[in-house]
């Protein structure tokens, strides 16, 4: 059972404010991913939850108990570090036993827990090895095992995959997902990789410049992003934003054509968000839609992305079939699926509901 409440959490280093009041509720057994660009404060927030750094303001409650002044080792929280931070002078067994013994568990219990963690993470043949004799993926598993053995209420993982190569990364990612299902603890995971966030999370917290931009399931964030930041951060290739003017039920690009999207909010200017799967290309120039010129085509085997420049210079990505390739410099017409466009305010970038 682990219920985390973050209330107005602030952090500043000297006079630089890094977090400007974070409010967040995390439920039991949830897999929460903090995602955002470098320097957005996601790792700082994780360190505050761990208790490694003091908060400058706000409150952190774990199961209703105020944790602000509880030392990290007493919070019932375990952390897996980016560099794994294994103790180089202890073998794998000792690395896992160290924390468990400090909790005051008796010898048999420590052994049982290590055996269980080793089995779950396939570490049995490695127990007598020193960290320097392990590969990156193995070290990663030991770091996770060290956290498991303490049976914490909350697991914190700080960019755990960033030191692994691409092939291993997806493998360990699956392993972490499996582990979460198996042990059912609350996990908080920090990453700057939106693919990791999308594949692992029950709940994604998108952060930017020390603030939470949006909290929601991967599907929520993809389908109804709250603002242009979330819209362009989640999804690959990035959503394209086009500055357009409303005219009745049509969106008009100055000197570049217009598209029909149905009912529109009553504002003059807005930003139209286009994902690659919402865009249709037709080979005839001058049709009903935005006029564009093909810049290049990315062929990916099962599909292809065609990048088209609009009249105002914006580059739009459109997904096409693998046989539907376009030559560079070809003039095309872009139409959109009326149901799958996103509209944002031209001023503050917030989502507009038609």
């Amino acid at each position, binding site marked *: 059972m682990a219920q985390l409440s973050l209330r107005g959490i602030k952090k500043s280093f000297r006079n630089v404010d890094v977090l400007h009041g974070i409010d967040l509720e995390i439920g039991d057994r949830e897999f929460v991913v903090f995602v955002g660009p470098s320097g957005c404060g996601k790792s700082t927030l994780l360190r505050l939850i761990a208790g490694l750094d003091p908060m400058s303001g706000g409150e952190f409650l774990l199961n209703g108990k105020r944790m602000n002044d509880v030392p990290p080792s*007493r919070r019932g929280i375990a952390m897996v570090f980016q560099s794994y931070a294994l103790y180089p002078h202890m073998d794998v067994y000792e690395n896992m036993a160290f924390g468990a013994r400090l909790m005051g568990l008796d010898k048999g219990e420590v052994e049982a827990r290590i055996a269980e963690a080793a089995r779950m993470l396939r570490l049995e043949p490695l127990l007598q090895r020193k960290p320097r004799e392990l590969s990156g993926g193995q070290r990663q598993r030991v770091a996770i095992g060290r956290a498991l053995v303490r049976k914490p209420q909350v697991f914190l993982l700080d960019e755990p995959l960033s030191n692994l190569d691409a092939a291993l990364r997806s493998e360990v990612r699956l392993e972490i997902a499996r582990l979460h299902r198996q042990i059912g603890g609350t996990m908080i995971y920090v990453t700057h990789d939106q693919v990791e966030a999308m594949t692992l999370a029950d709940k994604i917290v998108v952060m930017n410049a020390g603030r939470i931009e949006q909290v929601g399931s991967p599907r929520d964030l993809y389908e109804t992003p709250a603002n242009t930041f979330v819209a362009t951060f989640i999804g690959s290739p990035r959503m394209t934003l086009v500055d357009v003017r409303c005219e009745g039920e049509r969106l008009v690009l100055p000197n570049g054509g217009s598209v029909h999207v149905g009912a529109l909010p009553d504002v003059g200017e807005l930003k139209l968000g286009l994902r690659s799967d919402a865009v249709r290309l037709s080979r005839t120039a001058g049709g009903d839609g935005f006029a564009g010129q093909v810049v290049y085509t990315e062929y990916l085997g099962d599909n292809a992305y065609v990048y088209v420049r609009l009249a105002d210079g914006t580059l739009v990505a459109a997904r096409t079939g693998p046989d539907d390739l376009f030559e560079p410099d070809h003039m095309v017409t872009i139409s959109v699926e009326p149901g799958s466009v996103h509209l944002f305010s031209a001023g503050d970038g917030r989502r507009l509901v038609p």
Partner: protein
Amino acid sequence: MREGPPSSSARAKRIFMPQLRMTGRGLWITVLIVPPLAFVALFIVYPIISAFAYAFFDWQGLRRGAFVGLENFHTVLFVEPYRSWTLNAFKNNVLVFFALMVLQNGLGFVLAYALWRELPGARFHRIAVFLPVVLSTIIVAYLFKLFLHPLFGVVNISLRGLGLGELAQPWLGQSNTALWSLIVAQAWHMVGFPTLVFLAGMQRIPSEMLDAVRMETQSEWVKITKIVWPLVAPSATIVFTLLFVGAFNWFELPYIMAGLDGSPFGSTDVLGLYFYRTAFGNVSAGQQNFGLGSALAVLIFIFIALVATVITVRLRAREIQL
């Protein structure tokens, strides 16, 4: 030195170039290595070998007498009064070594830990702690001799000022405090060195590893004994070895603060002073015996070399084990 467009003759020349450069390189190596090698041979290897040789002869002043075999060694080790003098000096050296191990290295580790944890004022103290190391031993020794002066010394004046007048005493003038006074002066002088080495060792510990420990315990004691100390063990090897060599070669500070006789009553006598006195004589005794002195020097050398080797090998083994 680039020539014009490569012709066939130039290409032929280039084929020979590497060979020429090899000889040039060999020449350079020779030129750079021979002078220091000669220097080391003349001023280090030769004196060591000749000291070995001198120890096997009888000496009349600086005139070499008959070959006496191991008699000089026998005299300094087993014949009175040399036997008790040797034993007394050796015992004092052993005491100095262990006392400095605690006061200098132990305190150095604690200071390094405090500096590393960035306690308030760490920036200032990082420099302050190392400053005495830069001072000449002679200056430190004279300073402490002044500090410890029975009447005008700052130590006794402070004690009296604090109303602890009964603790004021002639620190360097009585057998039970003299050696300890020297040890404290030495520890003050050199504590910055182990501090610096330990601090460097600690700064190599990644900050995430410390965070990992903090997630598991808040006890400073566990952090130090289980994580920090094992990880700075490589620094400890060099610090221990150098302290051992330094403690058994101790000379300048006792020479200035206590004099060549290790006064009072030999309570500050150490092997360095004893050797010097025996080999070159002193003002009060006047006698000098090169043979006995050399025998002592050889024994000290062998002892230090053997023990230092054992310490290094043992500690190195522990490093790998860790």
